[in-house]
C-alpha cells in the first residue's frame, strides 16, 4: 500500500540541502507550518531561498529561520508587518536579498510552475516601478507584463487532515498558498493535524490531491505563531 507517512519530523526534512529553494505555506500566522520550520532550523541547512507571502513574525517560525542566518533570499509580497523585526533588521544590514512580487502574481507564478506553464501575462505592476525590466506586451488594447513560473525544490506545508496517499484538506483561510505550493515543489512535505485512512476524506472534498504530496508527518497539536508570540517565545 502506498504510504507517504513519516513518523519523524526531523526525518521528513533531513535531506533539504544548503542552497535549496523552499516554499513555506501560510499567510502570516495562518497556515504556517511552525513544527516543520523549527525542524529545518534544527537541521541547519543554509543559504536557502525561501518563498512565502511574508517574512515571519516575532522570533519563532519563519522569522526564527531567517534570524538563524539560514536564509539568503526571500521571495515575498509583503516583507514587513507590525511584528516582523528579524527580516527588516537583516535587510537593512544588507545581509538578506529580497525579490518583491505582488501577491496575486506570486500565487499565479507558483501555480504556473505546478501546471507546467513557463510564463503568462498579467496586468499587475503595469505602469509601476515593479514592471521595470519585465517584458510587456499588448493584448486587446491593454498592456500586460510577462511573468515566469516559480518553482521550488521543497515545500513545507501545514494542513488539517491528510490520508496516507497525500490527499489533504485545510482549515479555513489557512488554505491560502498551500495547495499551490504543493503543486510547485519537487518534494512537498506536509504536517497534518489529523491523519485518516484512505477513503475517509470524501473525494469531493479533497483540496490537494495526493499526487502533489510526497511526505506527511502527523503533528496532532500544532503550535500557532500568534500564540507563541503572545507568550514571548523564541526558537531555538
Amino acid at each position, binding site marked *: 500500500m502506498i504510504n507517504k507517512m513519516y513518523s519523524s519530523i526531523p526525518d521528513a526534512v533531513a535531506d533539504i540541502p544548503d542552497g535549496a529553494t523552499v516554499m513555506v505555506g501560510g*499567510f*502570516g*500566522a*495562518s*497556515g504556517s507550518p511552525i513544527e516543520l520550520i523549527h525542524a529545518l532550523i534544527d537541521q541547519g541547512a543554509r543559504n536557502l531561498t525561501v518563498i512565502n507571502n511574508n517574512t515571519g513574525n516575532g522570533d519563532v517560525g519563519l522569522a526564527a529561520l531567517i534570524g538563524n542566518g539560514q536564509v539568503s533570499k526571500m521571495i515575498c*509580497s*509583503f*516583507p*514587513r*508587518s507590525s511584528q516582523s523585526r528579524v*527580516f*527588516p533588521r537583516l*535587510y*537593512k544590514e544588507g545581509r538578506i536579498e*529580497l525579490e*518583491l512580487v*505582488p*501577491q*496575486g*502574481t*506570486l*500565487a*499565479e507564478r*507558483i*501555480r504556473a510552475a505546478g501546471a507546467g506553464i513557463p510564463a503568462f501575462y*498579467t*496586468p*499587475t*505592476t*503595469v*505602469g*509601476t*516601478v*515593479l514592471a521595470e525590466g519585465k517584458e510587456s506586451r499588448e493584448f486587446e488594447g491593454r498592456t500586460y507584463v510577462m511573468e515566469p513560473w516559480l518553482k521550488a525544490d521543497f515545500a513545507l506545508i501545514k494542513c488539517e487532515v491528510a490520508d496516507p496517499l497525500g490527499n489533504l484538506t*485545510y*482549515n*479555513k*483561510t*489557512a*488554505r*491560502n*498558498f*498551500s*495547495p*499551490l505550493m504543493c503543486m510547485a515543489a519537487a518534494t512537498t512535505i506536509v504536517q497534518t493535524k489529523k491523519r485518516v485512512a484512505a477513503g475517509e476524506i470524501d473525494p469531493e472534498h479533497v*483540496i490537494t490531491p495526493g499526487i502533489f504530496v510526497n511526505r506527511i508527518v502527523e503533528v496532532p497539536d500544532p503550535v*500557532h505563531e*500568534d*500564540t507563541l508570540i503572545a507568550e514571548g517565545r523564541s526558537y531555538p
Partner: protein
Amino acid sequence: MSTGWSREEMAARAALDIPDGSYVNLGIGIPELVTRFVPEGREFIYHTENGMLGMGPPPADADRDLDLMNAGKKYVTAVPGAAYFHHADSFSMIRGGHIDVCVLGTMQVASNGDIANWSTGAPDAIPAVGGAMDLVQGVKHIYVITQHTTRTGEPKLVERCSYPLTGPGVVSRIFTDLAVVDVTDNGFQVVELAPGVTFAEVESKTGAPILPPA
C-alpha cells in the same frame, strides 16, 4: 475652517455609492469602516484576498479561530454562504474582474486616476506591496477614502503622484473629509461637498486643478 466629514462619515458616504449585491474588497484603515454603514436594504459580500468570500465581523475573543484571518491578518468570521479558496482562485477573482468595488486608503491620488499607496520610495524603506497592485488593476471600480491632506497639510490629491505608483489611471472616485471627488477626463471634479465645506477650501487644499460641483 470646517471639520468636514469624520472617518465614519467618509466610510458611510462611500458605502452609499456601492450597489446592492456588490462583491467588495476593503483596504486596511478607514475603508474597513464601510462594513458598519451598509445602507438599509443592501447587502455586500466581502472578499478578502487571502482566500474567502463572505467575510463577517471580528469574533469575540473566545470564538476566535486562529486560522480564520483577513488580508490585514486580523481575526474575522464567516457569514452563511461563505466560501474558502486558495490564493490563485482568490486573485483570479481580482485579476479577472469579478470583484465590483475595492475601497482603498492612499498616500496620493492624481487627477488622471493614478494612485500611490504602497511605498514612499524612500531609499531605506523596505518595499512591501501585498495585493495592492493586483487590486487596482483588476477590480471594476476603485474607490479611495482618504483625508484630503496629510497631517502636515500637504495635498493628497495631486496633479502627478510623487510617490511610486501602485497603478496608473485606475481610481474612479475619491471620498475625503471635505468632498466626494470624481476622476474625469477633465481631471478632478467635485461631486459633493461635506456640510459646511466650501469649494474654495477644497480647491485650496487640492494639489491639482479641480472642477466645482456641476
